[in-house]
């Protein structure tokens, strides 16, 4: 009965949404880049042509179905292959129409669209590198004032909402919200370099109309030019493991002045974080900081309690790596020790070297050793991580 109510609710909601968001429910979302606009035009034009063909042919079939039936005593005629010039002409007409649709009406604009889509460099004013990892995006600004800005963007929908069996209210942007958004200036052509660290991902915002595979070990490129300020949401579009549904893309497109202010603020924030790496931290500070880092980045696999999901994702509680020594007698970090594992990863586990800063790595390791049921008691300082990187 409950299911039935839900279905009728859904059906009525759908009928309402037809009138309320006619543009959104039945077609692409509002395009905000030249590419997306082009795609929408191609799509609309082609859907009209397809439907015209479909309904004309369907009408002919339906007429035949009703007129040429045995129950109406219709006597079958004898077909003969087209032989006279007129007959051949008529038979060829559908063929010619199709040739025209394929290679002229659709084919010529398609050529220009491809050329536009692949022209990533011409008139591009800035470069952003997008790196896909299981299961988060990393953004790095490659040039201009923003050069050096680099951050990780994680799903920020509260964990309990995405848990199995959660029945409560969900956020409005359920599964489509992140902690750090990519910020781009409006009206600028941005060349996007795409790569991945582990498996393939695909960075996709429907309103941008471009998507490109992120292939580990290769750089692919695409571009966006957002012409309208706003917040745009999308998702990873290439199956990348169990977290595939949980790596959204959120982009804030803002006017140039706002973008410049954001760059300045972001740089200050980064300078502060890097200063933090040089100071001496207490164990409690590190554990407190590490809890946040752990829950955001590690808990997907190793679970919030540290119990893991064996056999694929081992437990950290009582694990040999997380409770064993980090450094050898010479002060170099041990191969297959805790720090090595976090920096470089192993098999399914990604290396975090490029994704987390020194403080975050020090904090998360200290947290794992002194929480989650472990009590090794030692402290890893950000300065030690910094040294280990060299």
């Amino acid at each position, binding site marked *: 009965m409950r299911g039935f109510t839900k279905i009728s609710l859904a059906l009525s909601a759908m009928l309402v949404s037809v009138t309320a968001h006619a543009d959104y429910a039945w077609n692409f979302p509002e395009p905000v880049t030249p590419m997306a606009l082009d795609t929408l035009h191609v799509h609309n034009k082609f859907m009209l042509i397809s439907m015209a063909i479909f309904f004309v042919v369907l009408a002919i079939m339906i007429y035949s179905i009703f007129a040429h039936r045995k129950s109406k005593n219709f006597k079958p005629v004898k*077909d003969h292959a087209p032989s006279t010039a007129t007959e051949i002409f008529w038979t060829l007409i559908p063929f010619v129409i199709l040739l025209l649709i394929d290679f002229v009406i659709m084919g010529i604009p398609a050529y220009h669209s*491809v050329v536009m889509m692949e022209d990533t460099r011409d008139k591009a004013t800035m470069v952003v590198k997008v790196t896909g990892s299981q299961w988060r995006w990393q953004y790095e600004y490659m040039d201009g004032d923003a050069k050096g800005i680099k951050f990780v963007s994680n799903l920020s929908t509260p964990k309990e909402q995405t848990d199995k069996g959660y029945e409560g209210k969900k956020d409005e942007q359920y599964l489509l919200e992140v902690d750090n958004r990519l910020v781009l200036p409006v009206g600028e052509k941005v060349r996007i370099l795409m790569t991945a660290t582990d498996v393939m991902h695909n960075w996709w915002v429907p309103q941008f109309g471009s998507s490109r595979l992120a292939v580990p070990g290769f750089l692919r490129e695409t571009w966006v030019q957002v012409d309208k300020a706003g917040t745009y949401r999308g998702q990873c579009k290439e199956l990348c493991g169990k977290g595939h549904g949980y790596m959204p893309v959120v982009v804030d497109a803002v006017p140039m002045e706002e973008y410049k202010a954001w760059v300045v603020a972001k740089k200050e924030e980064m300078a502060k974080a890097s200063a933090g790496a040089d100071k001496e931290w207490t164990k409690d500070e590190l554990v407190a900081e590490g809890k946040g880092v752990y829950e955001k980045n590690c808990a997907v696999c190793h679970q919030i309690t540290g119990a893991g999901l064996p056999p694929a994702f081992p437990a950290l509680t009582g694990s040999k790596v997380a409770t064993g020594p980090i450094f050898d007698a010479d002060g170099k970090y041990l191969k297959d020790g805790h720090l090595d594992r976090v920096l470089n990863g192993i098999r399914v586990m990604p290396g975090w070297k490029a994704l987390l800063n020194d403080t975050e790595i020090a904090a998360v390791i200290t947290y794992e050793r002194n929480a989650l049921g472990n009590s090794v008691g030692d402290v890893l300082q950000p300065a030690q991580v910094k040294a280990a990187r060299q």
Partner: protein
Amino acid sequence: MSTTTVAHHDDHAEHPTGIMRWLTTTNHKDIGTMYLTFSLIMFFVGGAMILGIRAELFQPGLQLINPEFFNQLIGVHALIMIFAALMPAATGFANWMIPLQIGAPDMALPRLNNWGFWLLPPSAILLTLPFTLAMFGIGDGALATGWTFYPPLSVQGGIGVDFAIFAVHLLGVSSVLGSINIIVTLFNMRAPGMTLMKMPLFAWGWLITAFLLVATIPVLAGAVTMLLTDRHFGTHFFDAAGGGDPVMFQHLFWFFGHPEVYILLLPVWGFIPQILETFSRKPMYGYKAQVYSFWAIGALSVVVWAHHFFTSGMPVPALLYFMYSTMAISLPLAVMFFCWIKTMWKGSMSFETPMLFTVGWIILFGIGGLTGLVLADVAADAQYHNSYFVVAHFHYTLFAGGIMGIMAGVYFWLPKMTGHMYNEKLGKVHFWLTAISFNLTFIPQFFLGLAGMPRRIPDYALQFAEFNMISSVAAFVLGLSQLLFVYNIVTCIKGGKKATDQVWEGAQGLEWTLPSPPPYHSFTEQPTVK
């Protein structure tokens, strides 16, 4: 005494009974029956998996299955439906009908035929065993990469990937054996007077399919073997760190994968016109045009593979080439649509279940074809790619174009195979339930794709909720309606109104000259074709 022995020997009617009959049989009808039964069982196994998925997607949030299991279900569903439901169904028809249609006593290579079938059950077990093993704590379940095996995800995956690789090897061997058998049969065992251009269209469809299988299955087998060595023996075919390229796998996979679509469809395109001519009571229009279209599609199918991954990155000339060559496929396909409709035009039609399925098939497959045309547009494809738009598109081609076509064939030939008529009323109910619930399942998915829902996600944002709910409900109706199909088949095998030799008033061809059901050993006297 000696005369009786000779006579006895001639009709080959003696065979072991019970399980040994089926294990050792070299009879084309027995093997055909086993293929069709296997296909029907696996259709339900694959269907049950996808109903699990649709139940999970009924509303946002995770309710029933966790993401790891979700990823396993989608990939194994696809592999089962393609390799264990659709392909064996087509091979089953080939075994049953090709010898009857060309006037041959049996297939050319009967022992190979037996082996070809008996490779299938072990491969189905290999494919699904990891699910069971995981329940006992061994490994982490089945293949979780989708049916496409893309590395590096498949290199990272658990033992399910290895099981699936070996399953694909066995399935591939089975398909190649079946294909060789069909090619040899068609080239050597046609009745006197039956030239290639007089061969029934179903045989033509299968001939092209068989050549495509022989040409492309080894490429797939090679690709998954390279994957296997990447996983276990330290090679780097698909690993950039060792000089390899993950995208190369996509090229190899789809070099097989695109022809595979036509491998599944060509046999159906073969018998659909035969059903049309039967129920239109007039010979099919444009036999030669359709045969040439088969050739054209067969040839084009092996040169368009990269349209499955336009977004993976390719040079502009490559993008343009694959776009235009893909569009060209619409030309032979349009010729076939023209011939199908012209066959119906001014016929004397009646609408028994096979004809209903055929007409529904033409319409729904038409939708699949037209949406495929716009997918060929590289720039627009960036938007459609890996969204639910594509999911809806290929279910129009493979469920409507494949499975509904096979169902038309089942209703068409079932009276010939069993000697009984099926329940016509039930058949019609089955058609209408299937057609309506199919559309209600997949039309919402077109809109989901346009709105921006990626495929293969276990949970989704709130704006996708309504369409998913409709799609899930309709999917369950679609799944449950298929129980009518099984009931109808089973009761038809057990008994029912006796079928005549010709079965259908307008049926043409050698298979309808034999009694229904045909004797265990078909054609004791070779027929001739004028």
